[in-house]
């Protein structure tokens, strides 16, 4: 955050530091659930895209395995 905005927010009447405990809980939620979910979806999407890229002839082999 740039200094001008930081100063501006600090000078706003009623401005406060956001509750550090809430912020920490938020980051824990992101780390434990959101990031793994994003990664899982990216992996799934890559697999879905890759499946379409495969020539149809190799599909029986894939199914056997």
């Amino acid at each position, binding site marked *: *955050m*740039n200094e*001008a*905005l*930081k100063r*501006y*927010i*600090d000078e*706003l*009447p*009623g*401005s*406060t*530091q*956001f*509750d550090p405990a*809430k*912020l920490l*809980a*938020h*980051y824990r*939620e*992101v*780390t434990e*659930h*959101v*990031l793994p*979910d*994003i*990664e899982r*979806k*990216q992996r*799934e*999407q890559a697999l*879905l*895209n890759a*499946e*379409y*890229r495969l020539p149809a002839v190799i599909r029986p082999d894939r199914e056997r395995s």
Partner: protein
Amino acid sequence: MYEWIDIREPADFAELTKKLDADFEAPRVVKILQEGINSSVAGVLIEREYIDKDYRSVFYHFYAKMGRPYRSDCVRLHFFDSTVSFNAEELDFTCTDDITKLSDHYFGYMVLRPTSAVTIGRTALSPRVRKDALGDSIVSVHKAHVLGYTLKWNAFPSMDQHADIVVCAHVACWSILRHYSERYSQHRELLVHDIKVMAHAFDPGGLAPARGLDIYQAERVFQAAGTYPLVITRKSKEAPGDFYDQLLAYLESGFPLFVEMLEEVHAIVAVGRTWQLAETADAAPSNASSAWGKVASVTVIDDNKLPYLSVPVRDDGQASYSADDFTRFIVPLPEKIFYPASAVASYARTALSDMLRGCLDMPAEDDMVVRFFVMTIAKLREYARKSKTSLPKELVIGIMQLEAAQFVWVVEFASNEQWANGQVSARAVLDASASTKDICPTWLAYSAKKVLFFDRSIVPADAKFAPLTSAASALPRMEQNLRPVAS
């Protein structure tokens, strides 16, 4: 060279069959115009011997090599409203309005190719003249020089596929890339032949292009054109996951989408959407927190039809296909969007909304509609500037000073009641250039009376909270990237 037709009723388009040579397949064109053009059009100017760059690009590389002689010239049809008429002796327009405002009475043009079949070439028609066009659409300003006048109007490019040398997928790529070159100065204009060649590592020549493209050849076209395409595949019709959320998010960001329909063996371009009317909205949409549940139809450019076709979300027994038939799409992104829509969907619906619920005015968890789209920080500042009477002053000043990336994701949270009234409870602005590993992609979040600024220059980001001086209890929904088709 120039001839005028008065259009008092759809049957008057039939005059074209008398005035155009057989090469231009006038009967089919007339039928399409009669079925698809509304009563706004009151006059058509026929411009003969028109040299069309897109047709010429295919003519030089294909039609000129054929035994049957093909003409090199085209016909261009210009569409006007009832204020305009034509003085054939002076080759000039007359207008009951100020003639310097001729652009306000012009609806665009349609080029006809002399190929005797599927003859509708480069077309840039205003959505205002399309019968049954609904909702909001991506458009850009087009320019035409006609009889010494420079006319400007909003449109999205379209054309018929040639069928014998390029097919629907080439035309879908062309439409998107022509929109980009008209809209963004960094994109150069690419002609139909260029698109045909760009799909392959080499020029396949002959009729090979007419056998069609697969989606990765279309992806290659967008890469070669300087965009950063992202391919999104639907898992299945029964379990689409957040496929449609992503589709809506990119569409509402103003990116036209190359859409593949595998079962239909067809490719189209998605350019807009229509929200459901409040009274017809689903009582219990499949995903209660998805803005997709509020969509009634998707506006598409289909090379078999006139542009701005409304495609229902689900099969209604009348349309030839629905959004249920969409299997994959390509979004040709600019370079600096690293945080994908799928990540926004995960973050916004869980951790972000949970945190904001504790500090901003947020809808209840079981009554929440989440919508998200990309915009530039410049557009966000423009919005803040224009909304300075409705947005709290502290927020406007904060947005002006925000140190942000070029592109931001805007996430809106609304209750169903607010949604029906075009309002939202809260809005968050995320960094579209964030890494998907970033635990705090948020720059700021606000509701009518409170704002939360994140300091992302430190890790983990710190946040500051401030009350806002606003009398309003909700914010207006942001409609920035698409234009109402009726305007």
